């Protein structure tokens, strides 16, 4: 016995096994009929689609088990299309499987690699061509071509400049100023302190200046404020932040300091605010300090007080930019 290890050999392609339809005309006919039925089903599907589209009104609802009340026009339109398409496919595949030749064919792979002679020729051609262009011998052309192409590459970038204005301090300002009234969202009604019970929240926006009746979404995206009433003894704030509240009512920017979703989910018993986007949790009693989740900064607090008529107003603009962070944000 030799010391060489003998590996298991390749027995080659197994003998071809014929299908029933190959040998027996009866089965072939049956397969043909099956394919034909599938194609006919498809035709029926298309007819169902056409009939649903033209004749079935779109306000009839029928109860279907599992699915509930369904719009019949929609459902039959879609099912008709689905049957029409699926059955053509099934028919084609069944036809290929049962009736078309299924003897395995072997094809040779050819090496991709060009032979050495071709490669050498290629290199020679490129070198000759490059030599003919003469870039190597003509540095002046090379350098000025580089300059021209390089500069022209700046043009598309420059032409995109007017895509938008420069941010300037847009990200740092909101519409809130000293004396701006808080009004309900929606409804635009000013709010008195007595309007809120302990445990109440209100969605608010700054009152529109006189003469304006329409708020842009751009403004809402920065101005939205959440008003919450607690009992004054529930707060755990320093004196300055406490002075920004009024009789237990505290106001925060509703725009999450993480990525800008609306933070309005207030849990009355725990006094936590939850942002549903990434689950940042803020503690209202400690000026919206982040206690869970990926937000890094508390929600900006809006200093509020009441005006002579008793309506809640802002004492001053926000002391910091609202919304998500950005490079120029100092905090």
């Amino acid at each position, binding site marked *: 016995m030799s010391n060489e290890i003998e590996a298991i050999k390749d027995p080659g392609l197994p003998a071809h*096994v014929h*299908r*029933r*339809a190959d040998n027996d005309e009866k089965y072939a006919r049956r*397969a043909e009929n099956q394919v034909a039925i599938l194609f006919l089903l498809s035709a029926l599907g298309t007819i169902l689609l056409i009939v649903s589209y033209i004749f079935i009104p779109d306000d009839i*609802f029928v109860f279907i088990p*599992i*699915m*509930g*009340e*369904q*719009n019949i026009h*929609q*459902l039959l339109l*879609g099912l008709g299309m689905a049957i029409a398409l699926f059955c053509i*496919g*099934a028919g084609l*595949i069944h036809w290929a*499987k*049962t009736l078309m030749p*299924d003897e395995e064919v072997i094809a040779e792979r050819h090496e991709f690699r060009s032979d050495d002679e071709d490669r050498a020729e290629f290199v020679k051609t490129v070198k000759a061509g490059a030599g003919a262009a003469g870039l190597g011998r003509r540095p002046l052309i090379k350098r000025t071509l580089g300059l021209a192409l390089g500069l022209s590459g700046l043009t598309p970038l420059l032409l995109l400049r007017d895509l938008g204005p420069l941010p300037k301090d847009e990200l740092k300002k909101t519409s809130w100023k000293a004396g701006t009234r808080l009004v*309900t*969202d*929606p*409804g635009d*009604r000013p*709010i*008195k302190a007595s*309007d*809120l*019970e*302990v*445990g*109440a*929240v*209100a*969605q608010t926006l700054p009152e529109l200046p006189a003469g304006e009746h329409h708020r842009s979404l751009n403004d809402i995206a920065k101005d939205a404020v959440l008003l*919450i009433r607690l009992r004054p003894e529930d707060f755990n704030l320093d004196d300055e932040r406490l002075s920004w509240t009024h009789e237990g009512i505290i106001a925060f920017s509703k725009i999450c300091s993480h990525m800008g979703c*609306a933070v*309005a*989910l*207030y*849990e*009355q*018993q*725990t006094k*936590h605010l*939850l942002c*549903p986007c990434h*689950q940042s*949790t803020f503690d209202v009693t400690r000026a919206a300090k982040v206690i*869970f989740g990926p937000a890094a900064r508390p929600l900006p607090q809006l200093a509020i007080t009441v005006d002579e008529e008793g309506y809640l107003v802002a004492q001053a603009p926000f002391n910091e930019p609202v919304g998500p962070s950005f490079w120029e944000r100092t905090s």
Partner: protein
Amino acid sequence: MKEFKEGNLVKRLSRLRRHRAAGPILLVFALFSIGTTFQVASAVDTSTTSAAERTVAIEEGKQLFLKGCSSCHGLNAEGGTIAPSLIGVGAASVDFQVGTGRMPMADMSQQAMRKAVVYTPAEINALATYVASLAPGPEVPGDELLNYERDGSVAEGGELFRTNCAMCHNFAAQGGALTKGKYAPTLMGVEPKHIYEAMVTGPQSMPVFSDKTLTPEEKLSIIKWIKAAEAEPQLGGIALGRVGPVTEGLLAWTLGIGLLIGVAVWLAMKAR
């Protein structure tokens, strides 16, 4: 008439008392005042119709309370470490909590869940009247107030819902997660009265929605929208829970690719 002496008020009043018309006038006045008092009282509380019935209800409610609620909420509803005080929560709170089966609470978990109602409507009314008698609080809304079909607007209700409610209860009122295992429940299949009471009383984690910031008409619009969403047939096919892309992706990864791979396996199999 005998002559009045100036400044003699007592004599004057005594004369008026004996006037022939005094009796009828007094009767009219009494009827008028009782009638208006009745109007005012019945507008908010249709459950008890007389002071006597109210007293009976309070007594009955107190007995029910002592038997079923005082072990957690205290003998005088003053609350304690395991349950809050019920003084001032009003009839609406009781009607909501007991009427939806949340109370009595089955276990001391994070959250009281909607479950089978334990008390009969009469008993709930008694409990509510008792708690309301302890201190003033939100009243149970009457049917007249709850006519959302007439007084509410679906479109406005949708806007209000998305601004005030969707962040907890989800855009289609299917419910959503809060922190530490709490959740805002689905609003499907909830009585309009209970939805209203929840907004007014702010049960457990839910905040209070004051009538000035969310007016009663606005509350009715919200209820109308919720009922319309509940009745809305599933447009476009099975709704997959109305919770968004999570269930849609799940269906694509199970039924979608499953069907396609199934066909692919069939396609590549040798025919018999």
